[in-house]
């Protein structure tokens, strides 16, 4: 077996011990790597029913089979743990050089358990694993932490994954950052690290990565790299994902003012085009990526002068239109603060938007908000809130809990406009106008997520009527989840998916040439289904109930007030119909549970 190392590094922070587990090729082939492997390792190593912020929760981190090879866009890592935000599976990806370093240090994955007595960082130095004091780093921002650790080790090749202050303060939507600006953003992995007194994992990997058929893999990689300069990635390369803003606005799909509107009147001011012409500094790429979607922007004048950050569409939506904010300098400053403190920008923005609506409705007053005037559009208030959330000070302590818990605490009907599912805040596409996508959000194992379900694609390509809820969407949603699971486990960036003529055939060829292991296209598809079932199994183990697959009351009770889809509804009966259809397509029971025979069919009989 090549590419894979067949080794998992187990780290016990409490005992300051590490050991290596050897994985068999058949096991790796079954779960592929990335999300698939991390989820399986979490199931095997995390304590069922554990407190997400307790010592018994495990953090599993896995790279893909192609990490460290020449294959374009194959270098990411996945992180899985029980989420402190949702109580279900937390899984999050980050594009990085960190993944290459872990592979080159000799590992396919890491599992971290226990809790360090004091702030600690783990240094994986090829075959050695060292536990180092992080007292001096505790309280430092993520960017500074990366630099400080590299300086301490004295080697610029060291790659660092770390948490900011929000993770230390156990904000349940704190992220884990690496490579100065890449994040495993969603579901609060940073808080899990913080609960373990784990500030960072630094990796120095200098060993070569072998591949089974070097010449052929090189040839195929160069070909894919060339294709990645074509039309399928033009959007990402030319405008970045922020190019979504005007299109979604025109289609009436841009969630605005906490989903009260789907059109922002001043969208031009926060458009990707405006960002490019007024703030763009450069585009940057993740490891091995020929696309370079990430837009680094800088504020050049005014009260936020000097703010500098990478902005993608979801960040811009959440901290901008969702909060009614049309000031790009204000959005850039807010995004920079989220990155420095280590906060998921989507959950942060949507939680602030909820607070703004509470304020405008009189549910929260200035006596609750530390005197801040939380009107929609107030970017100064948004910037002030982010610091309070990260430090859990004043109103920030309430908002640090996310929209689900904060609204349960505040009540007064605010639960109806808490824009979350399973506790995870909604991404930036209006579900009332994208019915298949709405189903994907409702049944998503990690909560409302556009990345684990790609169900917006058939809606947005016109393959189905995006405004109609009907039977048949269940199969489409299931297939889109399976596809996403294979991408997230092969660890191909989703932005290169359009460059494949036949993704399953070509991906398995990359896999074969790299690892020397045979995997058929059908086998890859089945692995996707297996991984989705694995994640669902984790949720059931942790107390999932049918009612958890649902959408916020606002989506189901209020028609779209404006835009080209004005008047469009998604009523509860329609969502129920699609969810039942999805369970049937999955081969699950009417209650959404996985029958034993379904687990056995997927080779998961040991989980029955």
């Amino acid at each position, binding site marked *: 077996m090549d590419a894979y190392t067949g080794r998992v590094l187990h780290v016990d922070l409490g005992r300051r011990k590490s050991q290596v587990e050897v994985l068999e090729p058949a096991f790796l082939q079954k779960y592929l790597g990335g999300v698939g492997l991390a989820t399986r390792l979490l199931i095997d190593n995390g304590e069922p029913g554990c407190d997400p912020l307790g010592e018994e929760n495990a953090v599993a981190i896995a790279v893909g089979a192609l990490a460290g090879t020449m294959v374009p866009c194959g270098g990411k890592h996945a992180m899985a743990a029980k989420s402190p935000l949702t109580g279900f599976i937390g899984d999050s990806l980050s594009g990085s050089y960190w993944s290459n370093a872990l592979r080159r240090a000799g590992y396919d994955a890491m599992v971290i358990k226990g809790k360090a007595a004091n702030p600690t960082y783990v240094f994986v130095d090829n075959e050695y694993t060292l536990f180092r004091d992080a007292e001096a780093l505790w309280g430092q921002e993520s960017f500074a932490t990366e630099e400080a650790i590299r300086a301490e080790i004295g080697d610029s090749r060291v790659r660092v994954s770390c948490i900011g202050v929000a993770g230390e303060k156990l904000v349940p939507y704190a992220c884990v950052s690496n490579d100065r600006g890449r994040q495993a953003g969603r579901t609060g992995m940073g808080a899990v690290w913080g609960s373990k007194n784990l500030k960072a994992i630094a990796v120095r990997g200098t060993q070569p990565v072998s591949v089974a058929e070097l010449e052929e893999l090189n040839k195929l990689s160069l070909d894919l790299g060339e294709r990645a300069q*074509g*039309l399928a990635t033009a*959007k990402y390369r030319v405008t970045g994902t922020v*190019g979504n803003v005007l299109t979604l606005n025109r289609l009436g799909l841009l969630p605005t003012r906490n989903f009260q509107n789907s059109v922002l009147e001043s969208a031009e001011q926060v458009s990707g085009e405006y960002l490019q012409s007024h703030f763009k500094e450069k585009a940057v790429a993740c490891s091995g990526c020929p696309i370079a979607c990430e837009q680094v922007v800088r504020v050049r004048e005014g009260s936020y002068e000097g703010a500098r950050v990478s902005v993608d569409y979801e960040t811009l939506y959440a901290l901008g239109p969702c909060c009614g904010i049309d000031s790009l300098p204000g959005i850039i400053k807010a995004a920079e603060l989220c990155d420095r403190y280590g906060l998921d920008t989507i959950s942060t923005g949507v939680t602030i938007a909820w607070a703004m609506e509470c304020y405008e409705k009189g549910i929260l007053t200035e006596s609750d908000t530390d005197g801040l005037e939380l009107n929609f559009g107030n970017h100064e208030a948004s910037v002030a809130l982010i610091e309070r959330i990260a430090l859990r000070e004043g109103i920030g302590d309430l908002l640090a809990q996310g929209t689900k818990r904060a609204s349960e605490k505040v009540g007064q009907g605010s639960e109806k406009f808490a824009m979350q599912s399973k506790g995870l805040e909604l991404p930036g596409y209006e579900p009332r106008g994208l019915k298949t996508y709405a189903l994907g959000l409702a049944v998503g194992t990690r909560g409302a997520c556009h990345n684990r379900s790609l169900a917006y694609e058939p809606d*947005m390509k016109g393959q189905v009527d995006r405004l109609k809820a009907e039977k048949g969407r269940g199969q489409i949603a299931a297939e889109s989840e399976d596809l996403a699971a294979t991408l997230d486990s092969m660890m191909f960036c989703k932005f290169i998916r359009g460059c494949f003529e036949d993704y399953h055939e070509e991906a398995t060829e990359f896999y074969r040439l790299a690892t020397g292991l045979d995997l058929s296209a059908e086998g890859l598809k089945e692995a996707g289904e297996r991984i989705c079932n694995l994640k669902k199994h984790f949720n059931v183990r942790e107390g999932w109930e049918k009612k958890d697959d649902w959408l916020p009351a606002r989506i189901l009770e209020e028609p779209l007030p404006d835009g080209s889809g004005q008047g469009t509804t998604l009523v509860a009966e329609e969502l129920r119909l699609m969810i039942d259809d999805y369970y049937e397509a999955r081969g699950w029971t009417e209650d959404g549970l996985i029958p034993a025979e379904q687990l056995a069919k997927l080779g998961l009989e040991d989980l029955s």
Partner: protein
Amino acid sequence: MRVTVEFFGVARHWAGVEECQLEFEEGAELHDVVMELGRSFPRLVEEKLIENQRELAASFALSINGRMVTQNLDVRLADNDRLLLISAVWGG
């Protein structure tokens, strides 16, 4: 009859304008619009957004009046339609 085409994202970048107006005979289809766009904005052909004179590349789509989105161009136009030339590639 007259239709308006609005450009978004890379299509706007390459067309160099935000929108244009086009005239057609009764019975024209989206294919005819794409052909006319290729003539009026050669960069769209150079960049292969328009293929075989009358087809859109798979990574693009047209929306009719902001509601229906389609990659099927066998659709007849109506007077005063507003067509949006958009990317069919999403994610963020």
